[in-house]
Structure formats: C-alpha cells, structure tokens
C-alpha cells in the first residue's frame, strides 16, 4: 500500500521531474497544473497521502488553496515547495497548518523525508478518525431511552437519580444501564465517560436540569 502524493505546480518541467523522482521512491503521484484542477478532482481520505504545493501558481495561489482545503475539511497534509520563500507567506502557511515549508531547489531526500512525515501524520489522523467513527456507530445503536440513560450516566448520576429524572423505576434503569454498557462494549463506567468525552457527546446540562 503506497501513499498518494498530489503535486500542484504550474511548472510542467518541475512537475515531471518530481513525479519521476517520487515514483522512483515508490509513491503514487498525481499532478495538477493549478489549484483549480486539484479542487476539481479533490482527493478524499481513503488513502494516506499529502499535497506538495507551489506558492506561486496562476489563478488561486498556494496559500489560498490551503485555506480553501481547510474549509473543505480536507485532512491531506500540505508540504509547501516554492522558488522563493518570504517570511510572511511562510508564517501564514505554517499557522494555517502546513506540514512543512521548503524552497527549491531541494535535495529529494529532504523532500521525501518531509513527504514521509506528512504521510505518517495523515495516517495517524485517518486512524484516529476511524476509531471515532466506530464509536459513533456504537452510540448510534442505542435506543433513544438508552441514549438518555447514557447521557445521565456519563454526567455521574446514580441509578436512583436517573430513575427519578426519567420517571421510572430503579430496576428498569439498571436494565438500560446494562444494555448501554453492552452496546458500547465497555466494562467500566470510566471507559464510558472517556468515549463520551471523545465524541463530545452527553454534554452535561444540555439535557439535564442542574
């Protein structure tokens, strides 16, 4: 499984040279002559990869494309590679979350290192996102009643309080609670709270009267 490198550069000669080199290094490569071309064929998160982006390209510039991709919630890390780096542009790009900011000409080992770092980060981001997605799927399996119970449990309510709040018996709550633990595949209350934290769910005070 090889990572996908997306090269955006208006210089055809450089695109070819870099494509050639990265392919030799074992990457799969896609090239784009402008920001518009990349946006038209926006790559998803399915595969680990990164974007190697020139700062000065006709039409939408590199930093402008970076902002646009953030808006589109793209997780692809961006390695800037430019002929001329001025401080303002560099700072702006790094603040906006650029993985690296390199200047041409650059030894390919250096560039490949940066690309590897970016790809690794993308993989991490992607795996984190996969875990959350599965937790979200577990949570979605809860019945509305069970979800209510879940929210109150992670707020630290005991069964009697929950029964009182939901207007039912303590025994019923106990059964719901068991169901929730089962469905969320946790053994302890602490685990359940941690999941709620990560998913930012069960916000206390939202549904619970204080």
């Amino acid at each position: 499984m090889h990572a996908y490198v997306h090269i955006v550069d208006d210089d055809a000669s450089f695109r070819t040279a870099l494509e050639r080199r990265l392919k030799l290094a074992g990457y799969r490569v896609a090239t784009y002559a402008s920001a518009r071309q990349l946006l038209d064929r926006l790559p998803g998160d399915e595969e680990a990869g990164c974007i190697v982006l020139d700062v000065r390209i006709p039409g939408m510039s590199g930093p402008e494309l970076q902002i646009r991709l953030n808006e589109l919630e793209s997780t692809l890390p961006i390695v800037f590679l430019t002929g001329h780096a001025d401080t303002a542009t560099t700072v702006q790009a790094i603040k906006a979350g650029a993985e690296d900011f390199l200047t041409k000409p650059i030894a390919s080992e250096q560039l490949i290192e940066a690309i590897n770092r970016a790809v690794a980060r993308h993989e991490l981001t992607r795996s984190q996102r996969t875990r959350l997605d599965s937790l979200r799927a577990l949570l979605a399996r809860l019945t509305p009643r069970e979800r209510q119970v879940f929210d109150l449990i992670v707020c630290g309510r005991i069964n009697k309080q929950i029964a009182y709040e939901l207007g039912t018996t303590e025994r019923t709550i106990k059964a719901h609670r068991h169901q929730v633990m089962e469905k969320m595949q946790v053994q302890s209350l602490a685990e359940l709270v941690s999941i709620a934290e990560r998913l930012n769910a069960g916000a206390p005070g939202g549904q619970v009267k204080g």
Partner: protein
Amino acid sequence: MGNAIRLSGLIILLATLLSPAGLRAQEARPHSMLVLDQSDRRGPFYYQVFVGLRDAVSAHSHAPTTIYTESLDLNRFGGEAYQESFRRFLETKYRDRPIGVVVAVGAAALEVALRWRPQLWPDTPIVFALVEEADFERLRPPAFVTGGIVTLKFENAVSVARAVVPDLKTVVIVGAEWERQVIFRNWKDQVAAGIPGVDIIEMVGRPMPDIIGQVAALPDRSAIIYTGLYSDGKGNYYPPSDALAFVAAKANRPIVVSAETFLRPGGIGGFVIVPSLIGAEAAKRALRLLDGEAPENLPPSAIDAVRPIFNWQQMQRWSVSEASLPQGSEIRFRDPSFLEKYRWRAIALATALLVQTLLIAFLLHERHMRRKAEVEARNQQSQLAHINRQATAGELSSSIAHELNQPLGSILTNAESAELILGSPTPDLQEVREIISDIKRDDLRASEVIRRMRSLLKRAPFEKKDIDLNQSMREAFDFLKPQASARNVAIYLQTSPQTLRVKGDPVQLQQVILNLVVNSMDAMARMPYGRTIIGRTEVNGAESAVISISDSGPGIPQDRLNEIFDPFFTTKEQGMGIGLSIARTIVLAHSGQLWAENQSGGGAVFHLSLPLAA
C-alpha cells in the same frame, strides 16, 4: 595841448626805457617793408618764402608792419632798360610811402637793390634772403646790409642720389643754363669739379622736348638731379616746379631735388631748401631793424634752411626704403594708411570686433559650461535610472528568484532521479536520456533568466544604438511574464508587423516599458479578478513609433493625469514616486513623448512615442 605834449613825452620815455640799451639814440624807423622778389612771387617757391615772411611779421603783433611786394621776375626779364624802367616805376609808386627796410629775396634781387638804394632808399637798411654763400662772397655787401646766407651743396644732392639708387653710376643734371639759374647757379663749378666715382651728364639749357625724350631712356643705376627749368626754349615760361612735373611724368629714373616745392611735382626728395624758413628768417631780421636795431649789430650769417625731406609716393615708385635715407629725414605725402583714412570707422569696427569676440568667447564659455552641466545631468539621470532599475529589480526579485529556482529545482531533482535509475541493476536508459534532455532545457531556461536580469541591472552609460522597438517590447514582456502570472495578471503583446527602428539606449527603453507595466500591475493590485495588461506597438505616420500599455485597472483621476509624471508623486504606500518621472526623463532624452490617458472602456493607457530612425 599841454596834455598832448605830456602824453607824447610819456610815450617817448616808455619807448626809450623799452629799447635795447645800445640803440637808445637811434630813431625808430617807419614800420613798413618792401619785399623785392628776384622772381615771380606767384611761383610756389617764392610764394612760400613770402608766406614764411608774412607769418613772422603777423606774429610780431606789438608793432603793425605794412608789407609791400614787388616781383622783379628776373628769370624772364632783364637788361638795363627793363631794370631802369622798373626803378622809375618804384620811385613813382613809393614816393609818398616811407620804407623802413628793403627785403631782397635772391642774390639777383640783392644786386638790384644795392644798385637802386642811393636813389630810392638812401638810408634804408637792406635784408637779403636766399643768397648763396658764393654770391655773398661775390657781392660783399656793405654794412647796412644784413641777411641769412644759405648753403646748397651739389655733393649733398649726389649723396642723396646714392642713397636712392644703390650702386649709383651716373647722375643727370636737368635744369636751365647755369647763368639763368638764380639759386643753383653756383653748382656750375661744383659740377665741373666732378664727384669721384660718379659720371655726371649735364642736361642743361636744352629745350623741353629734348629733355623729356632723354630722361625717358636713362641707363640703370642713374638718378636725375633737378635744378630748375623756367622755359621750354620756345618762349613759354613756367615755374620750375611745373616744369618738373613734365619731366617727372616721363623720367625713368628717380629725381633728386633741392627745393621743398619740388617734392610734390615728382621729386623723390633730398636736402631741400625750405622757402618758408628763409622768409621767416628774413622777416625776423627786418623786424629787428624796424624796431631800431642797427644793421651793423646784426651781421649777415649762415642760416640753416635746408632739411632732408622725401616724397613717400616717389619712394614707393622707386622702391626706396626709409632705412636707406639720411638720418633725420622727414617723409611727406605718405599715403594715409587705412587706419588714418578711416579712423573712426576703424575704431568702430575694432570695437565691434572686440565686443563680438568677447561675446563669442562668453558664449563659448557658456556653451562649455552647459555641455558640462548636460553631461553631469545625464550622468545623474543615468545613475537615477540605474537606482530605479535596481528598485524595480528588487520589486521583481521574488519572482526572479522563483523563476530561477524553478529550473534549478527541476535540474536537481532530475539529476537525482537519473542517479537512482543508473544505480539500479537494470537501468532504463531511455528514461535517463529523457531526463538529460530535460536538464539541458532547464539549464538554458535558468541562464536566460540570468541574462535578462543582467541586461536590466547593467550600469551602462547612456548610449544610443539602432534598436528594434518590437524586440525590446518582447524581451521586457518575457521578463515580466512570471511576475505577471504570480500577480494573477494576464499580459498580452501585439507588435506591429514591420520592424520599428529607433535610435536609443536599449536598457533604458526597456526600463521605461518595465516601469509602465509594473505600474499598471500595481494599479490593479486590489482588483479581485480580471487583471489584464495589453502592450501594443504601431507606426504613427512615417515619423514615429508608438508603444501603448493599457490596463483594466481603475484608471487615473482626471485631475492627476499630468501630475503622475512629477518626481515623488506616488499613490503607492511604499512607492518612491520616481518610476514614471524617470520614464519620462528617459523618453525626453530620446526626443520622444510619454503621456497617459484613460480609456473609454475603463483602465488607463500610457503612450510612448519615439522618432523612427531614418
């Protein structure tokens, strides 16, 4: 009555007191003088004698003196009967006119006066003038006679002839018979005695036609010595100076003369007797006698009435230089020189010339200074233009770096790829070949960027060359393309089909184009989209080429259209305001024009017109 006696007594007393001591006893003579000319007073020589005399008498103003004159005309008339009749005529004429002193001009006149004195003026003293030494010796006048004795030497005339004619061999004496001559008759003996080394031809007493015929054919190295002719031998009489004119008209040799009045008719000059001096000297003696001095106390003496005087025009004719003349010579009838003739005009002309010269010198100086200033201004303009180019280059530096690093990046990456491929067990040589050709292309690209950069930053002195404006435009636009694309500006260039030959500095003209295009880019910086620059070249008539740079920006406020070319006018936050001002300076130095206007469809357009090279 008693008063009158007293008055006359006083006058006598005064006269006695004023008179010289030795003459107090003498009684004052009547203040009148009778001048007896031996010749005709109307002849120029005797006239001058009389003028000298009269002037001296007039100057003697304290006692007015009456002058009577009689011309005896002895050259032409003679004989006992004539003289006797003349004596009687005088006796009758001056019966009632007391004469204080008789002045006899010439030895012949003196002889006559001495003869007549007992009858006509028994107590009257006689003053002679123009009496030659030999005549004086011959006459031995008594004590009541006084006067100035003149000395005329033939050898002087010969020495002058020698001065006038180098290697003189012959002198020719031209004149009347010696006996008829009144002044020079004494030369007869001197001539007869001869002068060593000089042949003397006597052409004396000949008829005028003979003389004229002979003087026209005289040998070389000869000179004529003229003594005076009074008649043509056929009964026509004339003053000797007139006769000289006839001789001089024909003579082929210079004529040495011995009387001042012979200079003008054609004598070259010589030791001449000056008649006015003789007259003046005689008058002085006569007046002293009239004032009461006794003639015994005023004995005859030699006087100096001879001067070396020469005729300048004759000197020219005979090529006689001033240096060869006797010392102290006076030169007459000099042609007035140009300066003498046109004195005021010459001064005015000289002044005008001087003023003009000064003016020209001043103007030349001015021109020199202006040249210097122009050169300095041009140097400064060159420097400023260079600074502006550097500033432009600074502005463009990021795009230049970008443009340069682009090929360099490609080259490095390609080289590494090739290395990798070649390191593999089965290298794909076809790919390596492709890589190398890419490297070559990128290398050329990089060097092209550097060449353009260098041509912009070259610090060259202003020099005009034959250039093609289309070519300059193309290069400038190529140079600007990366910058334009980085700034999201579409630039287009439309060049005229024909070449536009102009004389100009290629670097500076490109700088103008660069300034205009960068300026347009700056003007459009705040536009979100649609940034366009169009460059155009075209021929305007047969005389000029026009470049226009139009943009799609906001245009220039109408009231600022002229200000934008002023130095330090800027609308940019970081602009110096020298770009357009330098552009216009450069264009003016190329005898061109640069102006701006707004397009009807929006945006500004700059026009640059340059004269086409012939």
